[in-house]
């Protein structure tokens, strides 16, 4: 390290000043570099950074559009919107969970189990999906949160619109419900609206299938916000464009009445206008409350609904499939008439029908019966005979003509076809030959045949009108109703038999209309749920789930039918006892509301209040039972026998 030249004080001073100059030059160069960088940033890239600072400052918030109303045929809202103050959490921006959550709990007075739900939701929350903290807040609590927003990162209070279903559970299965978009849906569409707090889309029913029409276009608000999301001032607002209003063929009053009239039973009512196929009511009960469903429900509520054997989560009007029982007999009758059988021909009923070594029972000893009497008295023997004579293919064809075994062009998800069996079908499905016994069973609506309440109503409307009416639910849907190839006077014979069922010496005389000059025709049916052992019917003596279904199809007025109705009461034991009175009251409602409500009010007193009151009571009971579970009951009524005869 020994340098070449000697170093002394003077030369050192010289070297110092040389190096100080170097240092100065270096510092000057750095200074120039800094000045150059400043110039580059603020002149050359000024535009870009201006834009960025502007996009920082200005935040475009979407405002969920008001969902289009769903109204009934008279414009009465079935689904509308109400103002809603809500508070959400965006998990991504929630930095200080331990501090924010308790603070929110105090500000909003959140109930313990709601608080638990919130914590659970946050556990599995993905970044962009807003998690509901509370909805339907009053102004004071909403304001309390809004004011303290700077210390609540990740919390988003919004004033929006919430879906509102004035009739609640009565329309649940018809219109469905709405809910927040799932993370998958957001990833699919990348639509920022999907993660806007308060935005909900249709999850079921009409809300789901008509989503594109109902949604509308979101409004947008440009606001100046701080980095923490605190709003400084609003700059400009583009209003939302509400979704379209959808008009249905439904009669909201009738829909609500039908749902209430079903009471505590598990069942469905469908009413169709025989002039144009308009569905006036499509009720399935019990149901969930779409108002609370749209807010998201608790585990307890979900448990209660999914464990209920009355299936409140199933739309029985479309998805419930039942053997139609004696309500199928008009179809067998039409098959016989179309095959040229004389309606006046009598068949002797000794109380049953002998096929080989098996005896097929009738409901009674009817003696000689013609078509009219057979329908009125629901005589199995007559229809066994006719079914065998014309053959299963003819019976199946008549059934299909009447609308059984078909799906209809309705904007509703998940209809079910059911089954109209014929020899070819059995060969396909079971690889077995069709037997005479199958024909006998099918002729009286038992065995393989399965129908939905909607199909039964269509059947009733086609018998009533003589036209192949296609059911309609949207007010602007085309009317389709080609004439059926059954001569009108022959269809009239069947109707007059059905008139006698209710108004003569038939099975449903207790259900005749208490109205002047208006008569209802119909046909009762009782469908076996399981094979009957030892001659016992599925009546009161057996557990609920093994009891027979009660069915009824009908139309009114008899002379010039305007309304067709079908009612199915699951495990209602008999069509005449359980189903026909419901149909009677629904038709009564259409002509005389006061009278209909007078009888309903009396009934509801016995049931313990209207739908909401009963649902609330049920939920309380369920919660109690969950908290202190009773010891498991041993099933005392053990039933022998095989599988259900489906």
């Amino acid at each position, binding site marked *: 390290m020994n340098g070449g030249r*000697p170093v002394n004080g003077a030369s050192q001073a010289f070297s*110092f000043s040389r190096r100080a100059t170097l240092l100065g030059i270096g510092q000057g160069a*750095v200074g120039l570099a800094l000045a150059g960088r400043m110039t580059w940033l*603020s002149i050359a890239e000024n535009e870009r950074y201006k834009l*960025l600072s502007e996009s920082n400052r200005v935040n475009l918030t979407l405002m969920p559009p008001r969902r289009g109303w769903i109204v009934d045929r008279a414009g009465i809202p079935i689904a509308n919107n109400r103002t809603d103050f809500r508070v959400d959490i965006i998990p991504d921006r929630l930095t200080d969970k331990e501090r924010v959550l308790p603070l929110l709990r105090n500000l909003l007075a959140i109930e313990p189990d709601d608080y638990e739900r919130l914590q659970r939701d946050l556990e599995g929350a993905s970044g962009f999906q807003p998690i509901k903290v509370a909805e339907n807040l009053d102004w004071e609590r909403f304001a309390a949160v809004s004011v303290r927003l700077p210390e609540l990162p990740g919390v988003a209070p919004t004033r929006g619109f919430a879906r509102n279903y004035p009739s609640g559970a009565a329309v649940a299965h018809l219109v469905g419900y709405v809910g927040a978009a799932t993370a998958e849906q957001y990833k699919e569409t990348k639509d920022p609206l999907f993660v806007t707090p308060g935005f909900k889309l249709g999850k079921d029913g009409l809300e789901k299938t008509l989503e594109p029409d109902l949604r509308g276009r979101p409004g947008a608000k440009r606001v100046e*916000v701080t980095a923490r999301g605190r709003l400084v001032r609003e700059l400009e607002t583009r209003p939302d464009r509400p979704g379209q209003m959808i008009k249905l063929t439904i009669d909201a009053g009738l829909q609500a009445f039908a749902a209430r009239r079903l009471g505590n039973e598990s069942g469905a009512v469908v009413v169709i206008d025989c002039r144009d196929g308009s569905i006036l009511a499509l009720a399935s009960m019990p149901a969930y409350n779409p108002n609370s469903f749209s807010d998201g429900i608790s585990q307890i509520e979900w448990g209660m609904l999914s464990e209920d054997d009355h299936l409140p989560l199933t739309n029985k009007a479309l998805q419930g499939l039942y053997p139609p029982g004696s309500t199928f007999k008009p179809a067998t009758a039409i098959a016989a008439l179309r095959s040229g059988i004389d309606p006046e021909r009598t068949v002797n009923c000794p109380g049953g029908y002998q096929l080989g070594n098996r005896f097929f029972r009738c409901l009674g000893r009817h003696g000689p019966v013609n078509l009219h009497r057979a329908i009125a008295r629901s005589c199995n023997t007559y229809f066994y005979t006719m079914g065998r004579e014309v053959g299963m293919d003819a019976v199946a064809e008549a059934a299909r003509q009447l609308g059984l075994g078909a799906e209809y062009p309705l904007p509703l998800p998940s209809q079910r076809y059911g089954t109209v069996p014929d020899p070819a079908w059995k060969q396909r499905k079971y690889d077995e030959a069709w037997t005479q016994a199958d024909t006998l069973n099918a002729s009286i609506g038992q065995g393989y045949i399965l129908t939905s309440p909607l199909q039964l109503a269509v059947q009733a409307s086609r018998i009533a009108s003589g036209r192949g009416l296609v059911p309609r639910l949207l007010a602007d849907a085309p009317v389709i109703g080609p004439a059926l190839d059954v001569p009108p006077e022959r269809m009239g014979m069947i109707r007059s038999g059905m008139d006698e069922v209710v108004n003569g010496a038939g099975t449903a005389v207790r259900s005749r209309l208490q109205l002047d000059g208006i008569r209802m025709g119909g046909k009762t049916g009782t469908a076996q749920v399981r094979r009957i052992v030892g001659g016992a019917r599925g009546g009161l003596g057996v557990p609920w789930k093994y009891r027979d279904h009660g069915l009824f199809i009908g139309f009114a007025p008899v002379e010039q039918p305007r309304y067709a109705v079908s009612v199915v009461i699951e495990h209602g034991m008999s069509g005449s006892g359980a189903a026909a009175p419901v149909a009677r009251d629904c038709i009564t409602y259409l002509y005389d509301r006061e009278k209909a409500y007078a009888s309903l009010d009396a009934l509801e007193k016995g049931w313990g209040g209207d739908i909401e009151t009963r649902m609330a009571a049920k939920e309380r009971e369920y919660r109690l039972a969950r908290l202190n579970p009773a010891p498991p009951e041993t099933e005392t009524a053990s039933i022998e026998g095989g599988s259900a005869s489906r």
Partner: protein
Amino acid sequence: MSSGSTGPGFVPAPLAQLPWKTLLLILLIGGFGLVVLYSAAGGNVRPWAFSQGIRFVAFLGMAIVLSRIREEFWSMIALPGYVAVLVALILVELIGAVGGGSQRWLDLGFIRLQPSEFMKIFIVLACAKFYDMMPPNETRRFGAIWPAVLLIGMPAALVMLQPDLGTALMITAGGITVMFLAGIPLRLFIGGALGLALFVPIAVNYLLHDYQRNRVLIFLNPENDPLGTGYHISQSKIAIGSGGLFGKGFLNGTQSHLDYLPEGHTDFALATMMEEWGLVGGILTVIAFFLLIRWGVQVGVRAQSKFARLTAAGLATTIFFYVAINMGMVMGLAPVVGIPLPFISFGGSAQMTVLICIGILMAIDRQNRIKESW
């Protein structure tokens, strides 16, 4: 202190002897800093501008007092002072180790001392003293190097442990500057620089774990880390870039007022300023600092003793490092190491350090002028 008044004057000699140009420059920068802090608080003297102003006046007074102290005194306390600060650094480390976690403070009850701040000054004084004591013909030998490296290495290592990378860098840079000025052969510096340039990439690629390498890369290019320091940098660049030529106007900055710019009143005060004052404000600030630093280096060039020369140029360069590192960092040219901008960033310790530097520089300047006037 001086007895004879020089020439007829209304102004008492001590006042007349003050370097008024320099003081005016400092007052200008400091005053502008208060304006920036006033704006950073949204047009309010609280919480920053007021206390910063009080401190500024107090420390400036202290600097003027320091400027009356003779150079010999500084020379005398250079090494003892260095040792005392080094001991304080070790104490801080020990207390931190006992208390768990790292610590930078020494709490004396009435004041919290940050020894690493003082080290920025004493490293310069100690190195200057070391080369001052060394006979001129020794400077090109190995013996002129290793003690200085030790002098620099010990405090730098201790401060790195805290861990305070920015301060460690400044201490190292201050010491090396004095070595350079003392006449250590240039080839050593060039060789060292080359060696580092070769060694660092190799070390980063082969000696570090993945996560450590990532941290180095983020350190070198913060914008790779858009949520951490990268966020600071990009927001700061947005603030500066959106200011344009004349800025958005006083109190109209959005980046700072809407909290997008983190640390807008401390390390990133330059961005707060330039958003509102634009390129004009930025260039003027650079020029003002450049003039101040140039004055400091000139003081060194004019000084008579080797100690004074090295000290003055070294302290001026210390101020230069503050300014250069901070500005580079705010504009995305240098890694984010947490070094404030003197007189403008809110904070007491840097203000104190820089004004002590100014005080010592003024003391040397005063001596120079007294000697020149003889």
